[in-house]
């Protein structure tokens, strides 16, 4: 249909509004293509969503997603907090329960998936005890990312900056102006990390992400003096409900939800040296300084390629070509509709780029990425409509087994470094593989064991259910179980986007065939269930399924 014309335009024209629109008008060419898109754009493909996407096409799907109400967790947590607002352990459990419910069941799947990606760039973490102590604030921070996922990056940057949770995490809260007599200087933590990790990075980038060189050396985007300049901007901010700068509200809402406000008396009044020699004049006041500083950051040429590469790595592939980065960065810069910082357009550009959409067979061997451990579990639960036995996603603690959890990164540097490669052929080839940083000998065994347990034991019909199980619903698959070829083929589409190799298929078909259908002797387990369980288990713990291509 549109395929031929679109393909021509995609390869020849680059990122123009017409080519993106044409591409988006396409329908997925088959179930596998739809599954592949959904595994990137959601917390996991489902058979229903595959069918839906094939019916309405990408454009309509994106519009539906844009229109869907954001699934927020803070209001719900607030209602649940009332009995025991200061029992932070219990309330953190509740926060995580709500998060899992939102990401698994929310209609706004794309928004949730993007918020998860943003949480790995604009990092806060309950690993910091002071953050952990304000679960309502952590929930609000999650909601900032969810609301902001389809908004403008400038707005998101501001909301994150003024969040008291970020204020606690990177020490902007109650950061006071300097005092020479007492040898006190403003805290530099937020200033440094907002530049290094949230927006610009350490070295100047071309629009396609290439590191610019001067005399053969990378060019630093800023130096210590600039960090100190920004540190001076980020002074005088404290709790929004406080009467005085030093006040700390007693309630979770004041400590975690209300944005920080400026106290002029504690704000550095002098001039501030910022990026690229720009000097903020003295006496503008805290709010004007803040706005100017954030504008300056937002307008920096690095932001487009910086965010583009991060988002591509989170959603599609670990080693995008410079051209891919450049096309996405151009959309961020406003080449699409003239507005810089449109995150929805940027994400759509990431997902609809020809480099993302070329089928695995047409990709170079190094295309793709190791799936994030948390997403391997989430996509398993979505694929099989997992339902908690207790009714709540109780005590879902993934940090130990999967090395990831909602807003639980070990530091502001997230779970892994964008440039990480494990030693061996990936490193030798110069390929980045960030997710391997948490997939060490220990990590791989822990994650595999967790997946084993979640499939082999935690499914409807397992003879020994536990109250806190999250049960996969494999009943719809029982009919297929008598036909191993069809069973494996359908699981391949749903769980592996059709990328299963012929050799793996042969092994799975052989293995399934070897499992008796009739399990009457096995405590009344429905016929065929064991076969389905075993097939799913082998697939989700296999090397081929661990990698997304």
């Amino acid at each position, binding site marked *: 249909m549109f395929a031929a014309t679109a393909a021509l335009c995609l390869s020849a024209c680059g990122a123009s509004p017409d080519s993106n629109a044409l591409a988006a008008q396409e329908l997925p060419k088959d179930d596998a293509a739809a599954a592949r898109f959904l595994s990137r754009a959601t917390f996991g493909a489902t058979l229903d969503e595959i069918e839906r996407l094939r019916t309405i096409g990408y454009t309509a799907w994106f519009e539906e997603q844009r229109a869907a109400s954001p699934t927020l967790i803070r209001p719900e947590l607030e209602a649940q907090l009332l009995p025991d607002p200061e029992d932070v352990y219990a309330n953190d459990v509740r926060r995580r329960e709500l998060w899992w419910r939102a990401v698994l069941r929310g209609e706004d799947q794309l928004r949730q998936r993007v918020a998860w990606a943003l949480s790995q760039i604009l990092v806060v973490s309950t690993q910091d005890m002071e953050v952990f102590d304000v679960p309502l604030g952590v929930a609000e921070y999650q909601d900032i990312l969810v609301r902001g996922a389809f908004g403008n990056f400038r707005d998101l940057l501001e909301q994150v900056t003024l969040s008291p949770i970020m204020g606690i995490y990177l020490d902007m809260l*109650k950061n*006071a102006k300097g005092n020479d007599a*007492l*040898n*006190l*200087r*403003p*805290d530099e*933590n937020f200033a*440094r990390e907002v530049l*290094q990790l949230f927006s610009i990075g*350490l070295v100047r980038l071309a629009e396609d992400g290439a590191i610019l060189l001067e005399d053969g050396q*990378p060019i*630093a985007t800023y130096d*210590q003096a600039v960090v100190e300049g920004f540190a001076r901007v980020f002074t005088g901010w404290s709790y929004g409900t406080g009467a005085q700068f030093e006040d700390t509200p007693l309630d979770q809402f004041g400590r975690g939800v209300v944005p920080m406000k400026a106290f002029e008396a504690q704000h550095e009044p002098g001039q501030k040296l910022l990026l690229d020699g720009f000097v903020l004049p003295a006496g503008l006041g805290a709010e004007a300084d803040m706005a100017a500083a954030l504008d300056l950051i937002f307008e920096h040429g690095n932001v487009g390629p910086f965010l583009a590469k991060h988002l591509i790595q989170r959603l599609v592939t670990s080693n995008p070509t410079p051209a891919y980065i450049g096309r996405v960065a151009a959309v961020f810069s406003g080449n699409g509709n003239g507005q810089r910082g449109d995150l929805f357009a940027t994400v759509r550009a990431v997902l609809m780029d020809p480099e993302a959409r070329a089928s695995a067979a047409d990709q170079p*061997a190094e295309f*793709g990425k*190791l799936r994030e451990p948390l997403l391997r579990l989430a996509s398993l639960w979505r694929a099989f409509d997992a339902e908690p036995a207790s009714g709540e996603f109780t005590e879902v603690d993934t940090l130990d087994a999967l090395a990831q959890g909602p807003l639980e990164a*070990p*530091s502001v540097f997230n779970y892994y470094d964008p440039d990480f*490669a*494990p*030693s*061996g*052929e*990936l*490193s030798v*080839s110069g*390929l980045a*593989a960030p997710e391997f940083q948490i*997939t060490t*000998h*220990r990590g*791989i*065994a822990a994650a595999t*064991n967790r997946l*084993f*347990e979640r499939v082999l034991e935690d499914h409807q019909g397992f003879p020994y259910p536990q109250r806190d199980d999250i049960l996969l619903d494999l009943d719809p698959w029982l009919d297929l179980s008598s*036909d*191993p*070829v069809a069973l494996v083929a359908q699981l391949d589409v749903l769980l592996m986007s059709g990328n299963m*190799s012929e050799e*793996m298929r042969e*092994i*799975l078909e*052989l*293995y399934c*065939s*070897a*499992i*008796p*259908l009739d399990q009457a002797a096995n405590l009344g387990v429905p016929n065929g269930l064991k076969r389905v369980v*075993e097939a799913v*288990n*082998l697939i989700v*713990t*296999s*090397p081929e399924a661990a*990698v997304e*291509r």
Partner: protein
Amino acid sequence: MGAHRNSAPTRRDLLRLGALAAVGTGFGTCCDLDRILAAAGSTPRKDYRALVCVFLAGGSDSHNLLVPRSKLEYGQYAANRSNLALPLESLLPIDPLHSDGIDYGLAPQLESSQTLFGEGKLAILRNVGALVEPVTKQSYLDKSVALPPQLFSHKDQQHYWHTALPDPGGKVGWAGRMSDHVFQGNPTPILTNVSLAGANLLQVGNQTSYYAMGAEGPQALSGFDGQNGFLRKLAFEALLGLESDSPFVRSYAQLQVEAAQIEGVLSAAFAASKPLATQFPDSPLGAQLRRVVQSIAIAPGLALERQVFFCQKGAFDNHSNLIEEYPNLLADLDACLFAFQRALEELGLEERVVLFTASDFGRSLSSNGKGSDHGWGGHQLVLGAPVAGGDLYGTMPVLDLDGPDDVGAGRLLPSTSIDQYGATLARWFGVAEPELPAVFPNLRSFARQDLGFLGV
């Protein structure tokens, strides 16, 4: 293949699966481990040596770890550290073998360290940090010397500590380069480097890498119990043995196989070893160091000759709450180091092990009101019976804002380099003199290439 299947798997099915499983590597023996185990006894290899790195992540504010007690120097410290300064009377006095004319004390939480210092087992290396070549305040300000890139950035300074090279893209660490020279003595090269703290660059060499284990010990794969478990394992292994055109798939499969093979051997060795009597603190670092001691105890049975262990303790980035938090961090570190040393002594292994600390950087001498910001030089601890302990090494910086060592806002430039620190450790570890430049390419920039805390 679409036929109904109501009977048990036939012998033919099992043979086919087994054949497919055998095509790949499967979970067979790794590196002739069976043969090694059969041959090895329980006596340590004659010259077994282990280095244990405890990385204090975030930048340890060691200005409050080792503090001058002499009147002039303490006064200077107190005035310049403002509200961060420790009270004089709270400091634990130490009496180093060699004096630089100034009296020193340790932070009040370091009681066990004070004991170990007194026993001659703990040394303190003062003011060590990332240097490409020697730096003075003037040459720093003039930019007339080569400097480590991105000073004061966590990621880059951790990278520098791990690699000892001014190349932010570098992928090889100095413990890895060290291991490249010594691993030949180990029948299982992968166990030359063991990480208790996950992925790291320090232990990546050109020919060696590391085995990552949790403090709880190696994890076996648990999904092969019960009915069908045997067949399931065959199928699982068959999938691991498949070829793939994707380097990601290949790397993942290889890691899974390697993890299982090593686990098989290590779990058996740990299970057979005698439990430790020494109690460790119930903290992440305590658990890591306990596992390190247990690992050292099983090294003879694996015929290992040289090992490097990597541990990490976090939360040192005390921009705020330094006054409240740093003492807690030190208290845990203190208790962990003490337990570690006593545990080695319990097993009679103390002559074979040296523990050393490292950190992204020290912190600013000056206060930001609630804490300190990223600095440069910092003090590190070296612990072990082989250490010429009870002494202070390196040079104390002048604790004066805008003084001769302050390159700006209280960041004091180091007087000793990571290269010199590492080379001193490497020599003890068994790296021969001619091999040191390959391990520390910048060592030649520094006059003194052995700091003396491990004997000559």
